[in-house]
């Protein structure tokens, strides 16, 4: 096994492109080191991207903010403007693991680990976040929902990695929220997660919405029907009930050690409704 710590994206891409066997990106390392420790993974090459300029940056751009691949959850949570604009994304990222994990774990790592239960992903999907993929060819922008394709598998090609995530600035009167269910109060993997973003017009009618569910399918789901159930309503009880019913119906979970199918279906609806209620409150300001 080799450990490399390149100083540029180009050098990192070069190492990844040439590598034989298994190579892995090291940013926060909170998934990678666990996989190595358990013997699940024995990489031949580890590319630590933390010495590449920009990886720790949170940058204001014209239409939003760009979050570097090595920005930890704790750092994200300490950025007042990002927290104000995307409370749901920040809350979701801050839910990943303990204070210790927060000191290292990154949103991009959470995305590229491709766990269906990743907390930040439904929140990012709801916020219409876009990943910046760098690689041997030209850098490309990929909607976050298109990064993970199956548990542990991404759409990234050899030599590619995600250098940052872009959060487009929300429209006025937009509110967003993410909720997850875990059996304990901390230190758990989401049994169900729900991210909701909704925008109200001046009359208080929902003009745009986006709903995403985690841990109820092989990857995070975008539930367009659920968003449609909110659009055109004042997000009243009837709309929320319909949202819950649609989300429960959209959930295609499995029974596993963390929860039953029956439980996940029921709770997917409950959490979507509760998250939408918080998003509504936030949209109203």
């Amino acid at each position, binding site marked *: *096994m*080799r*450990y490399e*710590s390149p100083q540029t994206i180009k050098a990192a891409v070069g190492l990844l492109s040439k590598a034989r066997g298994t190579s892995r990106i*090291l940013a926060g*390392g*909170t998934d990678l*080191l*666990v996989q*190595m*420790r*358990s013997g699940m993974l024995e990489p031949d090459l*580890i590319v*630590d991207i*933390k010495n590449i300029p920009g990886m720790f940056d949170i940058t204001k751009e014209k239409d939003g903010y760009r979050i570097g691949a090595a920005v*930890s959850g*704790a750092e994200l949570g300490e950025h007042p403007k990002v927290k104000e604009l995307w409370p749901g994304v920040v809350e979701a990222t801050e839910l990943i*693991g*303990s*204070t*210790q*994990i927060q*000191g*290292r774990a990154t949103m991009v790592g959470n995305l590229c680990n491709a766990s269906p239960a990743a907390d930040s992903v439904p929140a990012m999907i709801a916020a219409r976040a876009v990943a910046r993929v760098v690689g041997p060819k030209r850098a490309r922008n990929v909607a976050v929902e298109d990064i993970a394709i199956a548990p542990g598998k991404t759409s990234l090609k050899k030599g590619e990695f995600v250098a940052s995530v872009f959060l487009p600035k929300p429209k006025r009167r937009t509110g967003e929220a993410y909720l997850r269910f875990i059996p304990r*109060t*901390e*230190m758990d993997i989401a049994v169900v997660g729900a991210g909701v973003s909704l925008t109200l017009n001046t009359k208080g009618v929902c003009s745009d919405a986006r709903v995403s569910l985690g841990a109820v399918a092989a990857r995070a789901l975008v539930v367009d029907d659920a968003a449609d159930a909110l659009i055109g309503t004042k997000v009243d009880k009837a709309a929320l009930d319909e949202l819950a019913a649609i989300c429960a119906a959209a959930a295609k979970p499995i029974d596993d050690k963390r929860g039953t199918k029956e439980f996940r279906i029921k709770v997917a609806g409950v959490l979507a409704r509760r998250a939408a209620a918080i998003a509504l409150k936030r949209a109203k300001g």
Partner: protein
Amino acid sequence: MSSVHVSTMINGDEVDFVCRPDESLLDVLRDRLGMTGSKEGCGTGDCGACSVTLDGRLVCSCLVLGAEAGGHEIETIEGMADGEDLHPLQQKFLDHAALQCGICTPGFLIAAKNLLENNPNPTETEVRYWLAGNLCRCTGYDKIVRAVMDAAKDMRKGHRNAA
């Protein structure tokens, strides 16, 4: 496996070591540097017994590679007391009987110190959530939370007196 040479700062001392690329910072501290105060309870970041700070951030040293430590500042339990003078948290843990077996204690102290540096006046709920990554199986957490709250109170007083 090609070894990596690393120069770092631990508890204010310059430290050089050589490690294999797959060794965790915890392995390096314990097995190469003889600093066994940080404990391995799980090796997967779930228990917090190996807590250290890396450039002032609280982390699990089992989830940091030794190779990554180059150029960074690390603080461990061995650096918490100032010679004979205990940190107020260490004294409060003793006064409140906030330890039984003591294996989780170094991790709790490092995490609690980091909390009070970030938030000198935490509520009970804030203390409990900040420390949720540190498992204790003996105490039921009651006396640990009391010790942290009491230390925070004293440290705030000390601050005012010093100012």
